[in-house]
């Protein structure tokens, strides 16, 4: 299964990853506040992740790591 | 073994730099020091060095900043208007604690002024010039031989303390032809430059060179360290020449070209029965206030007379050194004019009589 990990402390809640995810599975968690005062991004349904790394590519703060099922495309 | 060569002051500076291991020179043409650039343009390729004609003095001093950060012995030279433009770089070099050598062959100002010799940049050279609390070491040679030796020494001082060291000359010295005695090998010390940005080569953590400290305590720490360093320099690096001061009635103070005129005046004054001495600061910063105070404090001394090619700049430091114990008079010429021996002698006679 493809998946991502988002560094919750590093995230600035900018929403760029939310914007580019083709599966629309990333949201800003309004119920969570990290130490820096941001609502960090989280994944709603990891099973739908295709490991495209769009989110990690656009994240300005290098918060996201990506694993892809079957390795590099 | 050593050999004696007849040389122009400006060329002596350039050759001294090369013999001191300087292989990087960045400059912008301006009279009366451009011969240094011409010399470097020919000599640097012979020693696998680099001479870059920059687009401005601002660029030149920033190239110096980069080369110094990269660990090189580096020099730039200019004259007054160009030195004004370099002040930004001086401040950054001070803040980043980089070693660099700058030569100012001073010309008459203010503004574009004239191309004739002057000493009107004393304030700018010794009191900072750029922004912030910093000092440059300032050396004031008075002969071609000294231009040579002090340029070599400037590189050692710069590296020893990671400071900008300035040679403050003037057009007379730059254009003067005098014999220079070259040593076969210059006393070039080697220094640890593990702080330099050379690329990590995989052997250490990354180095950074900067002058910015947003955090006030960190910036204050830098300033305290700088001040401690300046105190060390003041303790160890003062250079001064005293001539005929023992038992003198009148003490002259002068640097560079003016001091040469004063030495002749001392002889003339002796002929008419007035004992005149001279204190010649060789380092303008750190200033030799102890030597001046000592000479002035003798019971024989009636007054001091400071001679400069400006409207009265070093005289302020002389007065601070004398601290009110004796009157300190001033005689100066501006615009590129030199005081005549007679002018100075006339003043001396008035002071000796009073």
């Amino acid at each position: 299964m493809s998946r991502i990990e988002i560094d919750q402390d590093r995230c600035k809640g900018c929403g760029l990853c939310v914007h580019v995810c083709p599966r629309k599975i990333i949201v800003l968690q309004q119920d969570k506040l990290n130490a820096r005062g941001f609502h960090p991004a989280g994944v709603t349904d990891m099973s739908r992740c295709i490991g495209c790394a769009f989110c990690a590519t656009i994240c300005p703060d290098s918060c996201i790591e990506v694993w892809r099922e079957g390795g590099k495309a | 073994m050593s050999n004696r060569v007849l040389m122009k002051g400006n060329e002596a500076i350039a050759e001294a730099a090369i013999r001191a291991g300087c292989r990087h020179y960045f400059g912008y043409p301006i009279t009366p020091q451009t011969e240094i650039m011409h010399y470097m343009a020919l000599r640097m390729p012979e020693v696998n060095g680099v001479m870059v004609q920059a687009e401005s003095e601002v660029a030149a001093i920033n190239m110096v900043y980069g080369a110094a950060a990269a660990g090189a012995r580096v020099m730039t030279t200019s004259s007054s208007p160009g030195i004004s433009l370099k002040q930004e770089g001086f401040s950054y070099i001070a803040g980043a604690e980089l070693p660099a050598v700058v030569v100012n062959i001073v010309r008459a100002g203010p503004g574009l002024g004239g191309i004739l010799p002057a000493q009107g940049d004393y304030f700018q050279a010794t009191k900072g010039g750029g922004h912030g609390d910093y000092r440059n070491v300032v050396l004031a040679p008075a002969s071609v031989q000294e231009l040579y030796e002090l340029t070599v020494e400037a590189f050692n001082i710069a590296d020893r303390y990671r400071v900008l060291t300035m040679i403050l000359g003037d057009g007379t010295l730059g254009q003067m032809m005098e014999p220079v005695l070259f040593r076969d090998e210059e006393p070039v010390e080697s220094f640890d430059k593990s702080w330099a940005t050379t690329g990590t080569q995989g052997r250490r953590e990354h180095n950074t060179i900067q002058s910015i400290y947003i955090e006030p305590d960190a910036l204050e720490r830098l300033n305290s360290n700088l001040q401690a360093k300046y105190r060390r320099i003041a303790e160890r690096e003062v250079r001064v020449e005293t001539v005929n001061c023992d038992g003198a009635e009148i003490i002259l103070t002068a640097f560079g070209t003016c001091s040469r005129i004063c030495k002749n005046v001392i002889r003339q004054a002796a002929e008419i029965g007035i004992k005149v001495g001279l204190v010649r600061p060789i380092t303008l910063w750190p200033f030799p206030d102890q030597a001046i105070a000592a000479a002035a404090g003798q019971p024989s001394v009636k007054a001091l007379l400071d001679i400069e090619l400006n409207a009265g700049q070093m005289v302020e430091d002389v007065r601070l050194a004398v601290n009110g114990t004796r009157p300190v008079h001033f005689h100066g010429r501006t615009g590129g004019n030199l005081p005549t021996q007679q002018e100075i002698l006339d003043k001396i006679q008035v002071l000796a009589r009073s």
Partner: protein
Amino acid sequence: MEEKVFSRTRGLTGKPFHYCPGCTHGIIHRLIAETLSEMDILDVTIGVSPVGCTYNNYEYFACDMVQAAHGRAPAVATGIKRVHPDSMVFTYQGDGDLAAIGTAEIVHAAARGEKICTFFVNNAVYGMTSGQMAPTTLLGQKTTTSPLGRSAAVQGYPINVSEMLATLQGAVYIERVAVNSVRNINRAKQAIRKAFKVQQANLGFAMVEILSTCPTNWGKDPVSALKWIDEAMVKQYPLGVFRGQEIEVGD
């Protein structure tokens, strides 16, 4: 079987950036750092930090770094490169830094064909000093010093730096890219890589102009800011290669 396809680059120190949320300076930093790491040149690289929001990126890049006075990075880089001709030297500069106060330094570094790379971040404002007009501010764009919108009659026209520098023989590779979409980011990375390859081959001066967002001073949320690059900036600053199209860089 899963495989890690995106990790943090060792080209960055890992210290969190101080930039505003969604500011694409961070993306550009990562692309440069990844390139240094992938080309295995981190150990021989010396970068020059500007004055601007990224003044302290010497804390972020894991290579040797020198912080320069405002606009002077190309001169500082010249000094470094002339001392260490075998090293890789880059400058990172904003539009105020490069296209206003540092115009002379960049033009002449390019004209001399200094073997350095410049990454020119065009965000159409002075970010750090709170949104004043930059030389690259668009006509009509409101900034804190052009509150009625930049007018050609009053403030003159924007400067297209890439087009201008591409007229210089010493500037062998000039490309303008943007970091406002995944596709553009990937393209930008290729350009950054090509710039370092050009330097490695000692060909001359290379610059990549990067259209970047300043959500804070544009008064836009980070996503709208990405869109504004396409809607407005690209019209004045078309993407593409302005010089060195023919240069082939291998893998």
